[in-house]
């Protein structure tokens, strides 16, 4: 065999060849790839339904070779609930930003998680409203500058950022909740494992799984991509500690 022409890296089957519209250095693209790789690894592409959010990743359906629904802002978990309840044989995931999930869609995500809906949520936390041009999100860090908190987020007026996985971990029902990051190759490898595990849990019918991925928005953070990765490491990691907040296997004991 011709060693030089061996394929060692390729586009996952679950992704189309469409060029994404994301800004240079935006980590939405990496996260798309992690999801697609998980679908490929588990061989479920043809049996998968994705639910797109409103946010920068609204056009995610152009990049995936799977069926998709485009939800109203924040309602992806409700659509996923309706769909999966009618088609429990299919693999269903929602892909949501932090404005989508932690602000306008807070009610839908909490109740879907608490009902133990058997789908997976890919939660992309970049601490800002990317698509609408960088406004404050519920996840914006104290002091972080956005267009609607130009002097930096003032927690005395807007409260502290919401830690979503910790919040959801307070519920008894969810099967798997983990926070990961994608700002270094090592973190991406860990994130990949978590995303895959979340889908495995779904396939095993264990219940609701959500992976929060800390993500960069160089454009609205006003940084270069490498500055953004550094800023994430220095500022997001201390406030949003990485790790597993709930695992059905481990929680078995307290049930």
């Amino acid at each position, binding site marked *: 065999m011709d060693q030089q022409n061996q394929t060692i890296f390729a586009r996952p089957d679950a992704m189309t060849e469409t060029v994404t519209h994301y800004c240079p250095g935006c980590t939405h693209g990496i996260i798309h790839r992690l999801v697609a790789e998980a679908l490929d690894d588990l061989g479920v592409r043809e049996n998968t339904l994705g639910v797109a959010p409103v946010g920068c990743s609204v056009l995610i359906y152009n990049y995936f070779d799977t069926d998709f629904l485009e*939800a109203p802002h924040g*309602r992806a978990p409700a659509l996923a609930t*309706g*769909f999966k309840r*009618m088609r429990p044989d299919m693999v269903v995931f929602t892909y949501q930003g932090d404005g989508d999930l932690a602000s306008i869609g807070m009610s839908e995500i909490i109740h879907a998680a608490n009902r133990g809906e058997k789908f997976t949520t890919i939660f992309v936390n970049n601490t800002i409203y990317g698509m609408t041009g960088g406004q404050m999100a519920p996840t914006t860090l104290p002091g972080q500058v956005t267009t609607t908190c130009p002097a930096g987020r003032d927690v005395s007026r807007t409260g502290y950022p919401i830690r979503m996985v910790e919040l959801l971990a307070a519920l008894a029902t969810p099967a798997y909740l983990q926070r990961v990051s994608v700002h270094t190759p090592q973190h991406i490898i860990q994130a990949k494992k978590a995303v895959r595990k979340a889908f495995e849990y779904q396939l095993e019918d264990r219940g609701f799984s959500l992976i929060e991925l800390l993500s960069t928005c160089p454009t609205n953070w006003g940084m270069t991509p490498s500055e953004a990765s550094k800023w994430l490491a220095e500022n997001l990691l201390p406030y949003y500690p990485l790790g597993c907040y709930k695992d059905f296997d481990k929680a078995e004991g307290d049930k």
Partner: protein
Amino acid sequence: MARVLMKGNEAIAEAALKAGAEGYFCYPITPQSEVAEYLAKRMDEVGGLFLQGESELAVANMLFGAASTGKRVFTTSSSPGISLMQEAISYMAGAQLPCVIVNIMRGGPGLGGILPAQSDYFQSVKGGGHGDYRLLVLAPSTIQESVDLMMLAFHLADKYRNPVMMIGDGMIGQMMEPVEFPDHYEEPELPEKSWVATGAVGRKPHVIKSLFLDPYMLEKNSWELHEKYDQMKKEEVRYELYKVSAKNKIMIVSYGTTARICQTAIDQLEKEGISVGMFRPITLFPFPEPQIHKEAIKKNINDVLVVEMSTAQMMEDVEKAVLGKKPVNFFGRTGGVVPAPEEVKEQIMMLIEKQKKTKAKKKA
């Protein structure tokens, strides 16, 4: 199946099952909670899905997800709940998803009251949510008709790939009347649902969406929707005439249970030698505009009287239908106050007095 005595809400639920509904999503609200209570048991028996959501906002979006599977799904609610559903309804209309939504109306605006009303006419018929879209709107006046229209609603939703809304006032939900269900709901054949999201097996992915960033594509989608609404206007107009004859001097236009109150008034007046006819729209969208026009312009008709449980909402469509050819009068009670047949009679007598005076003036 034999005739059974049933409460409207339960009959509507059972009719949905007869039409092949496989999923039902709900949030409690008076005066329609019995639909949910009935289906909480029945759905298990028939192997369908019953799910109580956290809000009507979520429920309507669950319906959106569920409808994308191509299975027949529905929800029921009442006015304030229907307001919360408008977001998903607009999205489903845009994405051309079939589903059935029942509104057992109560008085509004705001929290309003819990008694029967017809004040969601505009909301149902004129859009309700944002964007260029319409719902097909059915308005039953009896429990039997609620059953028949509920089954038809699923057929029409599939035929047009559009949400269909059935609106009844609170009485439709709460009344008990004898009803008959068919053993099997017979319906004309429908095209295969080639658009459903069932997994991209050996085909290109299906994307169910209402987003078209290219204005020309969005315009195209809007005109496609418009064509469907035009087709509905041609094929789906339904109405009933009651005691319409050349002896009528007045034509009532009324829908839902209000039309039955008018019937009582018409029957009583008939005994007193006064002949009044009624036009009862059954589809509120498409509105029987040309048909009302045709009846109203008949020589013998001097006045049209619209009777509604609202402050003159359908009235606007009747005026549009009559095109100023005859005076269109209005009588309405609202906020949960149901008009009495005597009140309708009084209105008729006042119109007759007015007509006499005009005639006398003309002679003089």
